[in-house]
């Protein structure tokens, strides 16, 4: 799905492994939190570039994974990723191609620069799945869009 690449000052080294899976599962969420926390601590890393390794930025969470590993209310890989996104002080640059569904869209609200390919598609399908928004998006998106603005 996505690849976090770290831009060092001289030269730029891609340091992290790509994820080909387009859907998030608990392992991928855990891995992304580790990458962000690692980048936050590494003095050599100045910027994080976040882009698709496959055709889609993020097709959303794996529904079967929600059934198998439903996130608990407290500490979880998901909450660790949320805190990693909130806490990182280095700039996050996102490049969105293809689909950015659910977390693929809400996580963008934490990025400093977001570039989208002209054919990119976004969706916040939470209520359709009887779920609610996450990654702080219930606060950040009404603030950013205006409360009554509708994406579509």
């Amino acid at each position, binding site marked *: 799905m996505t690849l976090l690449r770290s*831009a060092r000052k001289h030269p730029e080294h891609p340091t992290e492994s790509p994820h080909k899976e387009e859907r998030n599962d608990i392992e991928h969420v855990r891995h992304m939190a580790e990458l962000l926390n690692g980048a936050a601590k590494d003095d050599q890393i100045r910027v994080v570039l976040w882009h698709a390794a496959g055709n889609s930025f993020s097709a959303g969470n794996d529904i079967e994974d929600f059934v198998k590993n439903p996130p608990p209310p407290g500490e979880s890989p998901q909450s660790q990723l949320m805190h990693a996104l909130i806490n990182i002080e280095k700039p996050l640059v996102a490049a969105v191609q293809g689909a950015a569904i659910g977390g693929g869209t809400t996580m963008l609200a934490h990025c400093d620069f977001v570039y989208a390919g002209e054919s990119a598609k976004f969706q916040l399908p939470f209520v359709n799945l009887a779920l609610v928004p996450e990654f702080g998006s219930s606060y950040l998106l009404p603030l950013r869009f205006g409360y009554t603005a509708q994406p579509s």
Partner: protein
Amino acid sequence: MLGRPFDASRAAQLGLVTQVVPDQSLLATATETARALAEKPAAAVQACKRLMKRALREQLEQAVKLENEVFAERVRSDDAKEAFMAFSHA
């Protein structure tokens, strides 16, 4: 709340996206920005981000905590089970 898809230009209008670019130059554009940022004085860049995000931080953390509690409840609900089932069979 309707959960319908939207496109890149709408995302830019809403302020979710900085810039819409042709698909083929997407990664080059993002990389160019990442490089430009990497050339700036790192401590100043990070302090700048910290300052710009400071005002939202406390409320953002509260929102995340509350969302996780409600999400955990919803994801285990009968409505969610039904929706997941419908999704898997779609």
